[in-house]
């Protein structure tokens, strides 16, 4: 096992194995290098660093916690298997996000073919202790998320990333490998479609 000398408070040093170093002490680039060198356990750091972000996006795209977890697991396993093809290890988080985003879009297409609507699935995800408020909230969720569900997977993804997750165009464009202009056009079309759909439902 590789040993790394870590300066202690005094003149002496202590030694820790790489996998014992905290995520704060190892950059993404270092973690990727260690995994590719055979330290599979180091991959756990990437799972911990990006798991919540990936899961949140999958949840918003699918509206179903089991499906979201399944997609995240598939994305992380695929990421491990293809890690050598990650050209910018310092941006491995964005690379993993892109893998997940593609799986989510495929899932949305497939769910649509099988007529599974997020608008019908989402309401039970965020119930509270007030039944009346829950019922009203469920109706709103069903209406707005049902409309979002009617967009193309690409439009839905763009709208979720921009307006629901609140990311900047630059950040989304970098992750999705699109130009900012193309991305804006996609968001504009999503808005136009949503407006029509929500007017229809009103």
């Amino acid at each position, binding site marked *: 096992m590789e040993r790394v000398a870590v300066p202690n408070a005094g003149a002496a040093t202590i030694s820790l194995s790489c996998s014992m170093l905290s995520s704060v002490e190892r950059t993404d680039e270092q973690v990727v290098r260690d995994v590719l060198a055979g330290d*599979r356990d180091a991959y756990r750091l990437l799972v911990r660093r990006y798991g919540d972000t990936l899961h949140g996006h999958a949840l918003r795209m699918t*509206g179903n*916690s089991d499906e979201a977890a399944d997609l995240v697991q598939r994305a992380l396993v695929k990421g491990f*298997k293809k890690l050598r093809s990650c050209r910018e290890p310092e941006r491995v988080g964005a690379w993993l996000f892109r893998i997940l985003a593609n799986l989510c879009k495929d899932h949305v297409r497939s769910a649509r073919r099988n007529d599974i609507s997020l608008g019908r699935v989402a309401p039970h995800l965020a119930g509270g202790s007030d039944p009346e408020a829950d019922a009203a909230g469920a109706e709103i969720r069903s209406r707005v998320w049902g409309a979002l569900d009617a967009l193309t997977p690409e439009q839905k993804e763009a709208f979720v990333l921009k307006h629901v997750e609140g990311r900047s165009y630059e950040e989304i464009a970098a992750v999705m490998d699109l130009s900012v202009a193309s991305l804006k056009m996609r968001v*504009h079309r999503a808005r136009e479609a949503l407006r029509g759909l929500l007017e229809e439902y009103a």
Partner: protein
Amino acid sequence: MKDELHRHLDGDMPVEELGQPQRDEADEWDRMVASFRTTAPKGAMPPWLEQNVMSEIE
């Protein structure tokens, strides 16, 4: 929707530069986006998922 409204919603044009009808429409959009955000499904990755991933790559 007019281009000016898209530009405003993109963060490229301040609301003061919009005419009143478009300001009203921008307000509607703000309310709609807020409803998406408040009703969006949220949740951290389940704790068992990390172990599932690590088991699968062993």
